[in-house]
């Protein structure tokens, strides 16, 4: 069927801010879909509140709106842009829910707009628990015994009938939010109450627990003619009970025979046909390991995280094909972009193994429970490809960048055998390491299987890795042994450690014996057809397939690895734009990255894609083959920066700012020299290695002080210490991981925090704009609300900032990007607190709101062009005539036990933007985009430290004025009442009921303003309140400045008609 020509203008809705369960994969899918639509000559209107995405670029869509994802905004946008169609299935659950609301309300029909791709009936059939169950029963597909309940009593009654444990799944939520397994009635009530509240429709499914069965997924495509194919299947190594986003997943399935494989495949095709899906869909199964019995767990009638993974694992571009199907094409009319010979109506055949591992945020949330459940907790993931399973697992482990490089990286040797056996039942991110230790202790496979339900085949593979560890430890390192160790991807440093040799010796021995990595192509067809797309993975002991190309200059672009708190999608935006800019300049581009969710690892972004771990050894193997003319490290976050030294040793020129100058910015003493030379003040401080040294420096400076390790991103390990005890604790935490570099201790200054990104060509600088943080210094810049242009700076301060930026860039010999953070105290006392000679988190946002393409500019500068010749006037650019507010978004409700109070260590997972002509409207939009929809019940709780009381009183007064009833802890209540603001005192949680906690659990509270005192001790006080509030869906603010911003925004809720701004015209 040819394309439906009545479709001319399509609205694509993105997924909004990155939160756990909805991450970069939707930028990848959305970007691919938009490009696919534009390829067909359609006009694309894009709506997404997330400014860090590639899909919100003006080269991706024709009209770009970075506006809150609310029904009102979409309605207004449809009236303004008059699209004829909406494509709702590529923006994740958020976009889908919005489109469904509009469809149900009849708005789309009334305005002559239709949903293309999958219909609303289909979406309802797949997403509504009752309808889904009825549909499955109709076609004879088994589902676990279950009941949809809308209240706790019904849930209890049903659980009593089918027996515990039961699984609880709220309808219409992301990443299984609010779900869980209940083993008794007490747990059931707790999880169910929470789930009912989080579900958009107030429904929760109570289901027979099939925990321990194999979890298998199929990615299926179907067109409007009814043709369907499966793109691939995947097997979760972690059996049912762990969210697939938190599981280690292998593709294709390894332990299914053809009978099981085809049984589930046929079932998946029957389901997608019965649901009448046109596009992509994901079906999840639980398969009894002892029979052919299976249950359908879930169907996602849209592209998903799993489909992004399946796309990268097979080379089959699911989102692109789904977009074409939405336009009316059938699968046999869509060319397979990889082979250019075959069509989309075939099934990829893999001749390799893919392993995906989750990137979990427990390094950021030390207090959080590491247990993995049906509630997803991972912020990102890594994928690896090899022609054997052991190798794929080893590569995935070292791709995580979590100080793990083998199955020995978590040490359980201290545990007694009994304790180890007991701990095998713990389901967390360290489970495979525990299994490896169990294998080392000789615990047999059957016992391990009985406890973990992880298939014996995988246990055996872990055992093969353990056997290699032993062989390397105990045997002479022959070339044969080394060859076998490399075949299963033991990195040189691990081999060196085990054999007592140096890494260099291993490296040399490999080269002497010709044991080097070769690269194979991901071609969708197991070599049956020639592939046109150079998408590579490494193997040992095979023929190399990399072909010599073009003769152009080659540049290596290092990606940023898995999405984690502190290093998010922004760096993928930068890597991709840098790659495109190099392409435009006539370079051959080579991307190295290991994140399957991102645009950078799409097969057609760079000339060559290497899907590989980002370690020095893995990069060196690529360098040996490609011999690039240079490498760019300033766009891939800290991951890429960390490779600088290794690249130089390999003889690869670093393009842009030299490694030596990167070092100067990070090395405290060198940096102090530069600041002195430039006559730029900074908070006083010192470098230390031990707690004793730190205390000495702190007492010399006077508390509070800021403590942090050098060379980190996202303020990892950064804390404000108010006394010697804090220092002991913080240094202890930092030194749990051996530090190659000293720890920094600085005087903590409370002032306005200012951030600047600039491009420097060695002579001139270009500053697109100055950003000001709403929260005072002390809260990580990534967690602060950032405003462009700065609202409260004097001209004098602005001039100083521009001048300091110029001086710093020059004396650090920056060529390319630089990011500087300042503190402004008083009128115009400007201090530098941090300099990063690289691209930063704010680059995508500031590029979009100023209309200055910073990354392409920096790229051109890196290859030798000058800012002036590129048509820009150096210096601070004129301010735009509107205001943009970047709002951090958190995923605290997903991480049980995480402390949500903000501080110098970053905790947000994503961001959204509010852009408008006035500050008030921009701020309002930003809060709206972050999902803070107030007022609801007009009840709030305040509990602030004494020094904040004067400000808190004024904020309380403003809340009272808009009708809020304030509850407050005794001290705060007294202060409020004394100032004439009515406040009801409530008891603290450790006191008898009714207390604060009862109030929060009563579901009548909109907001908690809880300002914890600084220091390790004090922040614990409000911990329980904050956790409970977050877990019951109450908004919690932990900074007085954020609270002030919120009330300012709420005072402006009469802004009914938002002004929508097309970023493409900025």
């Amino acid at each position: 069927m040819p394309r439906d020509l009545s479709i001319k203008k399509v609205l694509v809705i993105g997924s909004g801010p990155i939160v756990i369960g909805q991450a970069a994969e939707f930028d990848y899918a959305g970007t691919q879909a938009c490009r696919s639509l534009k390829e067909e000559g359609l006009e694309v209107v894009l709506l997404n509140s997330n400014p860090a995405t590639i899909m919100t670029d003006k080269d991706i869509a024709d009209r770009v709106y970075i506006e809150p994802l609310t029904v009102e905004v979409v309605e207004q946008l449809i009236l303004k842009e008059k699209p004829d169609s909406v494509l709702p299935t590529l923006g994740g659950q958020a976009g889908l829910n919005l489109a469904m609301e509009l469809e149900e309300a009849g708005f789309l029909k009334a305005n002559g707009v239709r949903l293309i791709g999958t219909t609303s009936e289909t979406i309802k059939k797949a997403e509504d628990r009752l309808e889904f169950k009825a549909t499955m029963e109709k076609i004879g597909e088994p589902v676990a015994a279950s009941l949809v309940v809308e209240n706790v009593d019904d849930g209890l009654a049903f659980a009593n009938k089918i027996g515990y444990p039961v699984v609880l799944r709220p309808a219409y939520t992301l990443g299984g939010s609010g779900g869980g397994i209940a083993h008794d009635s007490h747990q059931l009530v707790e999880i169910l109450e929470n789930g009912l509240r989080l579900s958009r429709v107030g429904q929760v499914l109570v289901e027979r627990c099939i925990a321990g069965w194999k979890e298998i997924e199929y990615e299926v495509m179907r067109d409007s003619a009814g043709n369907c194919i499966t793109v691939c299947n995947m097997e979760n190594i972690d059996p049912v009970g762990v969210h697939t986003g938190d599981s280690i997943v292998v593709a294709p399935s390894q332990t299914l025979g053809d009978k099981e494989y085809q049984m589930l495949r046929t079932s998946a095709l029957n389901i997608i046909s019965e649901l009448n899906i046109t596009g992509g869909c994901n079906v999840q199964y639980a398969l009894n390991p002892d029979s052919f019995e299976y249950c359908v767990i879930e169907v996602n009638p849209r592209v998903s995280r799993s489909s992004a993974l399946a796309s990268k694992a097979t080379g089959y571009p699911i989102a692109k094909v789904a977009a074409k199907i939405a336009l009316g094409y059938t699968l046999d009319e869509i060319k397979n972009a990889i082979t250019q010979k075959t069509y989309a109506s075939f099934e990829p055949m893999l001749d390799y193994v893919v392993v995906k591992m989750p990137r979990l945020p427990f390094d950021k949330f030390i207090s959080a429970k590491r247990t993995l459940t049906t509630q997803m907790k991972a912020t990102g993931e890594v994928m690896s490809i090899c022609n054997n399973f052991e190798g794929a697992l080893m590569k995935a482990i070292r791709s995580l960048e979590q100080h793990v490089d083998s199955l020995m990286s978590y040490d359980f040797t201290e545990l007694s055998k009994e304790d180890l056996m007991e701990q095998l039942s713990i389901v967390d991110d360290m489970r495979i390491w525990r299994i490896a230790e169990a294998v080392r202790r000789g615990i047999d496979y059957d016992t391990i299987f009985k406890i973990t339900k992880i298939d014996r085949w995988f246990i055996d593979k872990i055992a093969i890795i353990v056997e290699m560890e032993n062989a390397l430890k105990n045997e002479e390192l022959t070339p044969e042994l080394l060859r076998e160790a490399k075949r299963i991807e033991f990195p040189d440093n691990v081999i060196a450690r085990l054999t007592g040799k140096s890494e260099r010796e291993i490296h040399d021995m490999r080269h002497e014996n010709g044991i080097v990595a070769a690269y194979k192509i991901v071609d969708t067809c197991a070599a049956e057809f020639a592939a046109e797309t150079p998408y590579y993975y490494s193997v040992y002991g095979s023929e190399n397939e990399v072909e010599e190309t073009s003769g152009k200059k080659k540049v290596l672009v290092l990606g940023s690895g898995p999405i984690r708190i502190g290093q998010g999608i922004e760096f993928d935006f930068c890597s991709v734009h840098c790659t495109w800019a190099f392409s435009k300049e006539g370079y051959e581009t080579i991307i190295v990255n290991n994140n399957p969710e991102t645009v950078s690892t799409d097969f057609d972004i760079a000339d060559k894609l290497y899907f590989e771990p980002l370690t020095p050894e893995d990069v060196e193997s690529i360098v040996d083959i490609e011999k690039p003319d240079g490498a760019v490290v300033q766009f891939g976050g800290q991951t890429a920066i960390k490779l600088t030294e290794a690249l130089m040793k390999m003889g690869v020129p670093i393009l842009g700012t030299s490694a030596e100058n990167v070092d100067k910015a990070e090395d405290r003493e060198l940096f102090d020299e530069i600041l002195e030379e430039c006559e730029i003040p900074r908070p006083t401080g010192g470098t230390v290695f031990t707690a004793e040294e730190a205390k000495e420096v702190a007492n010399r400076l006077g508390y509070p002080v800021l403590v942090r390790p050098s060379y980190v991103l996202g303020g990892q390990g950064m804390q404000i210490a108010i006394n010697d005890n804090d220092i002991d604790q913080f240094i202890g935490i930092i030194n749990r991981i051996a530090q190659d570099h000293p720890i920094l201790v600085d005087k903590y200054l409370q002032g306005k925090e200012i951030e600047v990104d600039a491009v420097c060509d060695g002579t001139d600088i270009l500053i697109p704009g100055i950003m000001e943080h709403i929260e005072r210094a002390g809260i990580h810049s990534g967690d602060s609300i950032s405003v462009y242009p700065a609202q409260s700076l004097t001209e004098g301060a602005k001039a100083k900032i521009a001048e300091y930026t110029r001086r710093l860039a020059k004396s650090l010999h920056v060529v390319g990007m630089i990011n500087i953070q300042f503190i402004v105290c008083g009128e115009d006392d400007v201090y530098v607190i941090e300099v990063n000679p690289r691209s930063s988190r704010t680059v995508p946002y500031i590029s979009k709101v100023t209309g200055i393409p910073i990354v392409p500019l920096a790229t051109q500068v890196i290859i030798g062009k000058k800012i002036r010749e590129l048509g820009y006037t150096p210096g601070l650019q004129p301010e735009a005539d509107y205001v943009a507010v970047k709002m951090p978004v958190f995923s605290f409700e997903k991480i049980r036990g995480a402390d949500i109070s903000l501080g110098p260590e970053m905790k947000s997972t994503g961001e959204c933007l509010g852009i408008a002509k006035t500050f008030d409207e921009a701020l309002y939009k930003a809060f709206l985009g972050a999902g803070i929809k107030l007022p609801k019940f007009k009840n709030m709780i305040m509990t602030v430290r004494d020094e904040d009381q004067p400000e808190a009183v004024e904020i309380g007064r403003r809340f009272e004025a808009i009708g809020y009833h304030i509850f407050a802890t005794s001290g705060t209540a007294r202060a409020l009442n004394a100032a004439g603001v009515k406040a009801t005192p409530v008891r603290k949680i450790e006191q008898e009921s009714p207390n604060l906690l009862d109030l929060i659990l009563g579901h009548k509270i909109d907001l908690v303003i809880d300002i914890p005192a600084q220091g390790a001790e004090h922040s614990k006080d409000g911990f329980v309140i904050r956790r409970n509030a977050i877990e019951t869906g109450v908004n919690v603010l932990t900074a007085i400045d954020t609270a002030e911003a919120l009330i300012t925004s709420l005072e402006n809720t009469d802004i009914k008609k938002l002004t929508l701004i097309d970023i493409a015209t900025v």
Partner: protein
Amino acid sequence: MKAFLILEDGTVFTGTSIGSTRDCISEIVFNTSMTGYLEVLTDPSYAGQAVVMTYPLIGNYGITPDMESKKAWPDGYIVRELSRMPSNFRCEGTIQEFLEEQDIPGVAGIDTRALTKILREKGTMNGMITTNEDYDLDEILPKLKAYTVGDVVSKVTCEEKYVLEGTGKKVALLDLGAKNNIAKSLNQRGCEVTVYPAHTTAEEIISSNPDGIMLSNGPGDPADCTSIIEEIRKLYNTDIPIFAICLGHQLMALATGASTHKLKYGHRGGNHPVKDLKTGRVYISSQNHGYVVDEESIDPAVAVPAFRNVNDGTNEGLAYVGKNIFTVQFHPEACPGPQDSGYLFDRFIEMMGGAR
């Protein structure tokens, strides 16, 4: 023990011996299925050939009760890696033991992707698997070039006819090297299936008065099956409904005046898209064939194309004009591979007048 795969073009791959250690010379073909290695090993269509599995991990779930015939047929077996420990609730043994029991020589640990690329670029070729480290290429290569698959149908067909009881339609299945699931698919639909050896005369089949005739898959060059083609021509001339798969499809085409030719490297795997030319629907099919019917050679008065391969446009099925005869190149019986075209067995039952 080391084992070597020597190709007709002089390429040598060195790996580890698996299964039998005897030498074998055969035609080397590749299969891209990711599951179903046992079904592939026991598919009689592989007689006269040595199979390379492109999926690198073979034997993961061991040997299960899923054999498609009574024994393994390939002359040789070439893999990247055999799983040392199978895991599946139906596992009855390891693939290593199976290859030894079945006396199949093989080689593991070679770069199967590189080998597949050679076969793709240069076309299917002959090769030898040997464990003799002192092999002499000058002596071996002429032997490899001289190898032909020959008359393998006679080797793989059943020795005597046998019956699968059923209460429905009576089907005569001509066993040219049939996979079990063909008879099973019919039997499960109620048919009484009588399986005949390949060299049964048309007269014998016709005189048994079947409701329909099924021509099975099988190995080798269809044009070599001259005597069988003669008999099939006689079957064509009756009014008995006929359904044919793979070799059966090719032989029916040859019997009615069309010709066949050898594909460069064949279709072997479970991901081949075939289009039903009547409805435009595309199905993913299981395939295993090195030869194909020339569409240009078909007299439109005799037969019209019914299915075509979406990838390379080759013929995948024929509907015979004025006849109750329908033939397909692919494998609706699956095993291994997708079950999407299983509905064709229902269509055959319809052709015979519907379920009784």
